[in-house]
C-alpha cells in the first residue's frame, strides 16, 4: 500500500519507478493517449483523476456493447475484427479497473489520510456489516474521530472511507480463503509502525495481575477431564498409550493425573518436551534410572539405536522381576521442537511399545499428527482424547530455548536480527540459561567490550568482527573459569547462543573462527550489567 502510494504522487523521478508504476503507465496511458506515455507520473495522475468519474460510470458498459456488436453484426463475418474488438474491450476494462484503484489511492492521499492498516479496515467493515452493537460503537467513534487518542483515528477514517467504497471482500472462510488470500496483490500492511516494546518485568507483572473472567468455566472444563482419569488409567493398563490434544495447556491436568498413577505404585518419569535441548537420550536415561535407581552404573553405547536395544532388555528383565510395576512416562508436548525429528519419534514409539512402559502425552501443534508414519503409529498404539482445557500455555511458550517462545514475540521476532531490540531478547534467554552459560556469555561480551573500549568506539557502535574473540581463546578462558570442562560442553553452550543469534561467527583469514555478539556497545554494557547483577 505504502509503496504504491509513494509511486504515484509527484516527487519521484521517472527513473526510480518500480515495476508497478511502469505497468500502470503502460496500460492506462498507453493505448488511450500515446502522448502521455513519456509524461511525468504526476501528469498521468491528474489526467486520470479528472475524467475517471464519468469513465467509471461508463466503463462496465463499454465492453458489453462491443460484445453485442460483435454478436449482431459479425456473426460469421471475418474473425480478425471480432478478435480486435474483443481485445480492445478487454483492454479498456482492465484500464478502467486500474484507474479505479489508482483513484482510490489518490483519494486517500488527498484526504490526507495516512492509510496504514487495511487489515483493520476489513475487520471493521465486517463488524459494521454484522452487528448492530458495533455499529453503535462506530457511531460513537465517529463523533470522537480525529481527536485525542491514536486508537480512535483509524476508526473515524474507516468510516469515511467506507462511505465512498463498499467493502471489497466479505470474510471468506475455509478453502476459498486460502486462494483468496494468496492471490498476488499489494501487501496491505504497514512497514513503519512498530509496537512499543514491553519489558519482561512488566509483561509478567501485568499477566499476573490479570483476572481471567473465564476462570470458573476453565475450572469446570478441567473437572470434566478429571472425571475421565479412571478411564485413562484403565486404558493405560490395557496396553494402550494415551495422547491428549486440543487447545490449552494440559500440563496441570496431566500433573494431577500423574498423582493417581504414582499412587498405584508405578514409577513415573516426567518429560517436559517444551524445554529445549532435550534429547531422547535424556529420556531413556531417566527411564533406566527409574527402573534401576539413580546409581545403576550401566553404560550405554554411543549409538542411540544400540542404546535403545539394551534399555529394552533392561525393561524386559525388570518385567520379569516385578510384573505389575510399570513405568509411566509422561511427556508434555510430545510434538515440541526438541522431540520433532522422525528418529526421536521412532525411538519413543519403540520405547512406548514395551509392555512395561505406559505413555501418556500431550500434543499441541495443529499439525502434530504429521509426525508419525504408520509404523510408528502402530507402535505407539495411541488412544486419542480431546482435552481442550483453555488454560494458557504460560510455561510452554516461555521456555526460552523454544524457537516459538514468547521471547521472540515480545521483541517482535527481531531478537538478534536487528541490533535495536535484540538485546532485550538476550536478557530473556540468559535469564533461563544455566549459570555456566551466563558466565560464558559474560566472558565473551566482556572481552568484546574491552576491545571496543580500546578502540575508542562510541556507544552506538555495533559489535563487529573486528572486536571479536577467537574460538580457541574463548574456550581457554572458559576452561580457566571452570565454565566448561570439555570442548563438547563448550560447543553445547555456544549452540544455545547461536540459536538465539546472540553470537555471530566467521572464519578469519587464517581460518580460525572468530566470535562476537552482534549488538551495540551500549546494549552490551547493559547485558553485562544484567549478568553481573543477576
Amino acid at each position, binding site marked *: 500500500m505504502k509503496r504504491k502510494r509513494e509511486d504515484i504522487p509527484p516527487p519521484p523521478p521517472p527513473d526510480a519507478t518500480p515495476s508497478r508504476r511502469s505497468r500502470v503507465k503502460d496500460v492506462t496511458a498507453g493505448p488511450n493517449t500515446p502522448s502521455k506515455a513519456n509524461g511525468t507520473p504526476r501528469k498521468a495522475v491528474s489526467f486520470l483523476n479528472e475524467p475517471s468519474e464519468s469513465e467509471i460510470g461508463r466503463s462496465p458498459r463499454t465492453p458489453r456493447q462491443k460484445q453485442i456488436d460483435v454478436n449482431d453484426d459479425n456473426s460469421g463475418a471475418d474473425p480478425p475484427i471480432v478478435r480486435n474488438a474483443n481485445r480492445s474491450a478487454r483492454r479498456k476494462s482492465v484500464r478502467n479497473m486500474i484507474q479505479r484503484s489508482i483513484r482510490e489511492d489518490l483519494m486517500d492521499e488527498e484526504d490526507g489520510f495516512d492509510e496504514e492498516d*487495511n*487489515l483493520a479496515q476489513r475487520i471493521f467493515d465486517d463488524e459494521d456489516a454484522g452487528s448492530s452493537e458495533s455499529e453503535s460503537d462506530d457511531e460513537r*467513534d465517529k463523533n470522537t474521530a480525529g481527536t485525542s487518542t491514536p486508537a480512535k483515528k483509524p476508526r473515524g477514517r474507516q468510516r469515511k472511507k467506507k462511505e465512498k467504497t463498499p467493502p471489497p471482500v466479505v470474510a471468506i472462510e475455509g478453502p476459498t480463503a486460502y486462494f483468496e488470500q494468496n492471490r498476488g496483490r499489494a501487501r*496491505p500492511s*504497514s512497514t513503519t509502525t512498530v509496537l512499543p516494546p514491553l519489558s519482561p518485568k*512488566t509483561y509478567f507483572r501485568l499477566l499476573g495481575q490479570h483476572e*481471567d473472567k473465564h476462570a470458573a468455566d476453565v475450572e469446570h472444563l478441567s473437572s470434566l477431564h478429571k472425571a475421565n482419569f479412571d478411564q485413562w488409567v484403565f486404558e493405560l493398563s490395557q496396553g494402550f498409550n494415551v495422547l491428549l490434544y486440543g487447545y*490449552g495447556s494440559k500440563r496441570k491436568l496431566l500433573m494431577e493425573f500423574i498423582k493417581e498413577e504414582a499412587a498405584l505404585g508405578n514409577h513415573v518419569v516426567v518429560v517436559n518436551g517444551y524445554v529445549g535441548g532435550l534429547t531422547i537420550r535424556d529420556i531413556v536415561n531417566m527411564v533406566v534410572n527409574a527402573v534401576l535407581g539413580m546409581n545403576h552404573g550401566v553404560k550405554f553405547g554411543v549409538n542411540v539405536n544400540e542404546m535403545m536395544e539394551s534399555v529394552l532388555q533392561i525393561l524386559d528383565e525388570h518385567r520379569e522381576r516385578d510384573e505389575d510395576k510399570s513405568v509411566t512416562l509422561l511427556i508434555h508436548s510430545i510434538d515440541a521442537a526438541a522431540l520433532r525429528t522422525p528418529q526421536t519419534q521412532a525411538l519413543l514409539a519403540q520405547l512406548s511399545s514395551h509392555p512395561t512402559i505406559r505413555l501418556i502425552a500431550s500434543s499441541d501443534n495443529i499439525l502434530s499428527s504429521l509426525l508419525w508414519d504408520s509404523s510408528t503409529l502402530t507402535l505407539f498404539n495411541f488412544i486419542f482424547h480431546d482435552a481442550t482445557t483453555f488454560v494458557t500455555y504460560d510455561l510452554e511458550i516461555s521456555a526460552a530455548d523454544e524457537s516459538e517462545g514468547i521471547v521472540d514475540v515480545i521483541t517482535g521476532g527481531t531478537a538478534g536480527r536487528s541490533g535495536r531490540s535484540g538485546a532485550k531478547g538476550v536478557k530473556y534467554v540468559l535469564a533461563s540459561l544455566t549459570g555456566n552459560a551466563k558466565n560464558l556469555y559474560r566472558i565473551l561480551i566482556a572481552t568484546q567490550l574491552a576491545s571496543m573500549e580500546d578502540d575508542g568506539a562510541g556507544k552506538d557502535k555495533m559489535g563487529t568482527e573486528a572486536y571479536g574473540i577467537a574460538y580457541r581463546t574463548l574456550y581457554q578462558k572458559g576452561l580457566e573459569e571452570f565454565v566448561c570442562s570439555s570442548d563438547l560442553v563448550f560447543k553445547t553452550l555456544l549452540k544455545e547462543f547461536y540459536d538465539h543469534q546472540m553470537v555471530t561467527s566467521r572464519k578469519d583469514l587464517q581460518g580460525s573462527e572468530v566470535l562476537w555478539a552482534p549488538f551495540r556497545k551500549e546494549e552490551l554494557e547493559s547485558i553485562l550489567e544484567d549478568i553481573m547483577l543477576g
Partner: protein
Amino acid sequence: MDNDSVLNDDSGSLEHQACYIYTPTSEASSLAIPKKRRAAPSPSSSKAKRGKIDPKNCEARGGGGHGFPTLLRDLEDESAVNARYEAFQRLWRDVERRTDDVLAQVNDETLESVSTFVSKAGQDIYGEKLPTGLILTGPNIASHGVLFQQIESRIQSVDKLGRVAILTSKDSSNLKNVLKKIIRCVTEIHDGFDDEDEVVVDVKAGRNPSRYNYDPEIIHDWCSAHPDAKVVVAVQDTEAFDPAVLVELISILHQYLPKIPFILLLGIATSEDIFYEKLPHSTIRLLRGSRFDIQRFEESMEQLFEEAVLSPRSILKLGPRVADIVFERQKDHTRSVTGFVMALKYAYMSHFYANALSVVLGAVGSEEEMNTILSDAHCDAIRNLPSFKPFIEAKIPSFPWRARDLLTSNKALKSAVFTATKECQRYTTNLAEAITLFRKLQRIVSPQQAGEIPTYELYSRILWGEFTTRPAFRDAMLTTKKINAEKFHTLLTAISTLPSELSSTLLESASKLQELQSQKAAKGSTLVSEFALPDSHRTTVKSGRVRLDELKSGMTSQDTEYHKLVASTVQSLETYFKERFKPYTNLFLHEIFFYDLKSPHSQVFGAKPRPSVERALSRPGDYLGCECCGGGVDGEEGGIGGSQPYTAILYQLYLESPALIGIYDLWTAFRMVCMGDRGGDQDEDGNADDDEDEEEKELQAQFYRALAELRFLGFVKYSKKKTDHLVKLAWKGL
C-alpha cells in the same frame, strides 16, 4: 484449587527441567485417590445401605484395582463391578488367545518357504551367485518388523539353520556400521542356539585380538566353528536402505561367499521392478534366488475376522455402526491386522467399562449365576432398554399375564433374560453359520465377486438385515441358478458339508442330482435347466420365444427334474438366508450382545487435533459453556465478541487477515475488539489517560501471549520477507 497450588510448589523448580522422576509428596499421594462420582449415598430409601458400603469398597480396590466405575447411578453392587471386570478379562483373553493363534499362522506359509529356501541354498545350486530371497512384504510397513522377527526366530531357533542379522534402514548410515551390526548379530549369543557358542566365541575373541570389529573374518571364524550354520543377512526395508551401502554390502557378501555361506533376504514393500531399477546391473548379476509373497492383507484380515468376531466363541459382537468405522479405518488408513485387534479390544473395553448390563455376558452359561449377579437395579435397567419395549409389546396380545409378570416381578424378568441370552447366542451362531455358507457359495459361484468384497464388509449389511435386498446377494442367487450341472453338483456337496439345518436336504439333492446326471450321461448329453438356457440372439420377442420353445422341447424328463431340483434348492437357500439374515435389532437384549456405540471409537482412533483446536478458538463457547461467548447461532455474522478468551479473539482476527500479517495491524484490530467501547467512554471523561495506558499495556501483554500461543500451536511464523510481519500457515477448514 488447593491441590493445584501444592502441585505448583513442588514442581516449581522442575517445570523447566527437561525430564525427571516424579516423586509424589506424601500429601499429594493421600489426595490422589480419586473422589469420583460416588458422592453421597442416594437418599432413595432402601438403597441407602448399599450406598454406604460402596465407597469403602471402592477405596479398597482403588489401590491396586481395575478402576472400573460404579454405574447405574452408584446403585451397582461392588460385586457386580468386579464381575464386570472379570468378565472382561476372561472374554477378552479368550479372544486374544485365538487372534494370536491366527496371527501366528498368518505368515506361516511364507516362513515355511523362506526356511526351505535357506536350508537348500548352497554352492551346489547357486554356484558363485549370492543366494537371495526377495520377500514382497506389501505396503503395510507396520507389519514388516514383526514379519522379520518371525523369520529370524524361525530360522534361528525353530529350524536352527544358522544365524540371522536383521538390518534396517536406520543402520545403513555407512558400511562399517552395517558390518558391525551383522557381526554382532552373528557372534553374540542369542538364546535358543547351541550352548557351546559361548565358549567358541570366547576362544575366537581371544585368538584374534588384533581384528577390527567390522572385519568379516570374525564371521568366518564363527563359521568354522559351526560348519553347518548359514549366515542370513536380512534387509527389512530395502527401499529406504541407502543404495550405495547396499551395493557395497552385496559385493562384500559376494566376495566372502566361498568362505562364509551368506544368504541375503531383501524385504521389498513396492515391487521387484523398482528394486531392480535401484541397483546397478553389475550388482544384480551377483544375485540369484527366488521370490516370496506374503499373504495379502485382506486374506489375513478375513481369517482374523472370522475367528475373533464371527466365531460363536466370541460372545460379544461388533454392531454394524462400529464395524463400519473399524473396517473403514482398516481399509482406508491403517491396513494393519494388529490395528484391528486393538480396535476390537477397545470395543470390549468400553463395553464392559461403561455398560453395567455387560455383566450378563459373564454369566451367560449358568442361570444360577445370572440370578445372583443381577440386582434390582440391573432389572430396572433392563426394563429401560430400548429392546424391552418391543419385546413386551409382542408378549401382550398372546400372554398378557406374562407381560405383567415381566414388568412387576424381577424373578420373571431374570428368567426371561436367561432365555434371551440363549436366543441371542442362537442368533449369532446361526448368523455365523449362514455367513460361512454364503461365502462358500459365493466363492464357488462367482469367485471374482467373492474376492472383491471380503466377509467383514458384508457383515454390517447383514446385521442391518438389508443384505438380502442387496445386488451382491441377488447376483449370487441368480448365478447359482444359471451355473451348469457339474458346478451345481460341486456346490451342493461343498455346502452340504458345512453344519447347517439345510445340510441333509442339500445332501439329498446332491445324490439325486448325481443320479440324474448319470442317467443323462448314459444318453450322451448333459443336464440343462431352464435357467441355464442361453439368451436369444434374435431381436424380436417372438422369434426369441420360438427359439426358447425349441430348446425347451429338446429337454428331457431328467432335465425337467433337474430344473425343479435347482429351483427348489435355490428357493430353500434363499429362505434360509432370509431367515438368518434378520436385523439384530429385533432381538431382546441386543444392546448387551452387540457393542454398537459409534462415539468413542471414531474419536479415540481417528483424532482430529486440528479441527478441535480450530473449533475451540473460533467458538470458545462450545467448550467453555459460558453465556458471554456462546453466541453460537448468530456468531457467524456478528463480528468478534470482546468477551472471549484473548487467544480466541486473536485467532478470529487472524482468520480474517491475509497471508502476510503486520503485527501492528493485528494489534490495532485486537485492541479495538477488546477495548473498543470502553475506550470510547474513557475518552469522554478526558482525564483517564493513565488508567487507559495501564490497561492498554496489560492488553498488550495479553496480545503477546496470545500471539505466542498461536505460534506455539503452529498457526503463524515470522516472515523473513518483512520485519514485524507474520506468515499465515493455516486456513480454517482446509
